């Protein structure tokens, strides 16, 4: 599995962004959301029990993530049509404010190393990726354990309180380039 400090893999996938079949699908790549941080979180299967709760919980915090120049991106190995059906079917997911990636060919999940060897689907993995597409945080839960999006937000806050000001230089250190 890819870890902290490694580049997030390149990908080109279809994402489901709404429940309206005319506007529901959108191509997304690792080059979208330039200059933003990204939180990628994957779940094993659409239409299962733990997932909608935590996905809706991420949705509720979307504005907090946007305030931190961060784009949320959910995903699983289900197709974009299954994502749309799930969003349509489940009340808590109707107005979900972020895209769901459809990694049908399992390429992204494979390059991330999060395909469950037994089940063949995405593990419940979370990646915080910085504005230069470098992975800064990884968490993988057991398939049966839901996530706490507030914890992801706390980690993001900690990562984004880098002391970027040249005032932070200690004597003898090489200057930061800002």
């Amino acid at each position, binding site marked *: 599995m890819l870890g902290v400090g490694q580049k997030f893999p390149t990908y080109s996938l279809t994402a489901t962004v709404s429940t309206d079949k005319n506007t529901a699908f959108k191509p997304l790549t690792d080059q979208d959301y330039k*200059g933003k941080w990204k939180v990628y979180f994957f779940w094993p299967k659409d239409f299962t029990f733990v997932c909608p709760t935590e996905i809706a919980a991420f949705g509720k915090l979307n504005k907090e993530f946007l305030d931190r*120049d961060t784009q949320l991106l959910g995903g699983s190995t289900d197709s974009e049509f299954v994502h749309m059906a799930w969003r349509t079917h489940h009340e808590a997911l109707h107005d979900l404010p972020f895209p769901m990636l459809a990694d049908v060919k399992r390429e992204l999940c494979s390059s991330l190393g999060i395909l469950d060897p037994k089940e063949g689907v995405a593990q419940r993995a979370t990646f915080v990726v910085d*504005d230069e597409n470098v992975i800064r945080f990884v968490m993988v839960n057991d398939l049966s354990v839901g996530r706490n999006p507030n914890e992801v937000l706390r980690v993001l*806050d*900690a990562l*984004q*309180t*880098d*002391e*970027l*000001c*040249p*005032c*932070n*230089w*200690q004597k003898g250190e090489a*200057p930061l380039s*800002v």
Partner: protein
Amino acid sequence: MEDLLASIPDYAKDLKLNLTAVLKQPELTEQQTWGTAVATAIASRNGDLIEFLLEEAKSHLSAEALHAAKGAAAIMGMNNIWYRFPHLSGNPKYDGMPARLRMQVIKTHGSDPVDFELWCTAVSAINACSKCVSSHEAVLREKGVTEETVIAAVRIAAVIHGLAAVMDAELASPTVPTVS
């Protein structure tokens, strides 16, 4: 701008004439000049002066540069206090303690990074943080900015800071013009 100049009382005439002069220094580009004016006006805290200069700045700065200049005033308003404290205290244990404060705008302001440094330096001069002044000045020098350019921005900071105090005073107790 005419209204602003007309409202400056006679006892501060030097500052009035200096303001017109420092906003036309050949060492600074238009963006450097007006970004410095915006950032240092905000750092100097007089509402009327901020209103005048920000309105005027709109015709000299792109939306991005205006946003970044305001961002420089905002972030240095925080950082100048934070980074000044260790050396004010004289206790070396404070050196290097983590800030745990967001300062992403330094990276994400979206304007010219050298100009942003210049605005940070000018604000730091007003807020009197020697650590910030010396470190931002060092970055500017490293990026090839001349001392003449840096000091031109400090001239703007000095005049605007002086004027802000005058305008505060005039708000509290307006000078009655004497007929000569």
